[in-house]
């Protein structure tokens, strides 16, 4: 038996990149801004989508791809608000990938949408490295998670276009240093837009919605 060394030189997850590009291509012709929404479980992704849709009213139409390990709780929630939504179940996988998104993308009413939100799996680690074909990457951080998360999970913050600091209404009950959260984000990623909001009572949602509208104009 002879030994032999063979070159491979191939990127791992090259397949994902190709599907991400394909998703981009599908959306490019549609005048849609696609948002990859990432956070730890329960930081308020679905609530932010609901309140954003409420804020937009008749100005913009949104559609949603929901990612969860199991079930369709969030899908049902959004359907109640009349939002077109498809649910992906990843079973055991800790992030969505571009192939999964590609499979359902055209089930959404792409000709009648201005924004597509992709609610990623609740996780501050794994979704960071897996592009889905989105235009903007948004990380939500709830102040109830504590004020050290950007420093502890830098990768996801480094690549974010915006960070939404949510549950600001909890400041009444909790001693959280929001200025420090902002400093940590800026140290890692000085160009990220930062919004302080309460998705429950609507505080700060105006600036966030304006930013989305601006990004959409920039793309078009």
């Amino acid at each position, binding site marked *: *038996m*002879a*030994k*032999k*060394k*063979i*070159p*491979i*030189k*191939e*990127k*791992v*997850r090259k*397949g994902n990149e190709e599907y991400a590009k394909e998703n981009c291509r599908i959306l490019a012709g549609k005048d849609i801004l696609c948002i990859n929404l990432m956070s730890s479980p329960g930081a308020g992704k679905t609530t932010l989508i609901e309140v954003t849709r409420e804020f937009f009213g008749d100005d913009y139409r949104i559609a949603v791809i929901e990612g969860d390990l199991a079930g369709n709780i969030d899908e049902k929630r959004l359907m109640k608000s009349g939002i077109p939504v498809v649910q992906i179940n990843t079973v*055991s*996988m*800790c*992030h969505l*990938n571009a192939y999964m998104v590609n499979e359902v993308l055209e089930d959404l009413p792409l000709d009648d949408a201005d924004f597509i939100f992709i609610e990623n799996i609740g996780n501050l*680690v*794994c979704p*960071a*490295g897996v592009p889905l074909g989105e235009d903007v990457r948004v990380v939500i951080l709830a102040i109830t998670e504590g004020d050290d998360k950007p*420093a*502890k999970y*830098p*990768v996801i913050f*480094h690549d974010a276009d915006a960070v939404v600091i949510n549950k600001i209404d909890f400041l009444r009950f909790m001693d959280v240093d929001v200025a420090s959260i902002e400093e940590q984000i*800026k*140290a*890692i*990623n*000085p*160009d990220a837009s930062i919004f302080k909001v309460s998705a429950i009572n609507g505080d700060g949602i105006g600036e966030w919605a304006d930013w989305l509208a601006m990004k959409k104009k920039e793309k078009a």
Partner: protein
Amino acid sequence: MHEVTVTQDILEKALDAAKVNNAKAITKIRIKVGDFTGFDPGCISFYFELMAKDTIAEGAVLEFEKIPLSLNCSACDLTFTPEDFPLSFACPACGNTRNRLVSGKELSVEDMEIDV
């Protein structure tokens, strides 16, 4: 956990290349992994051992080349590896925090050794 999918990808790439080269066994696979990917080589090796069972890659050694996180300062053009990563990405020369990623996000299968 997310190492499962990349390990699957690594194994598939190795098995594909093995087939093309009529390999009887894969003995070593060389992988480049960037410090800024969040992928843990130990974790990849662990899953690989499970997944490669009963394939010709069973028992293959995974050899990792770690690529440091390297940034290029957009103010003074210095290329550097942040010292107290992950707490600061500031340029050690001028303190600027705007930068471009030069390396650290690599994940690739470089080459492998086979028995033919």
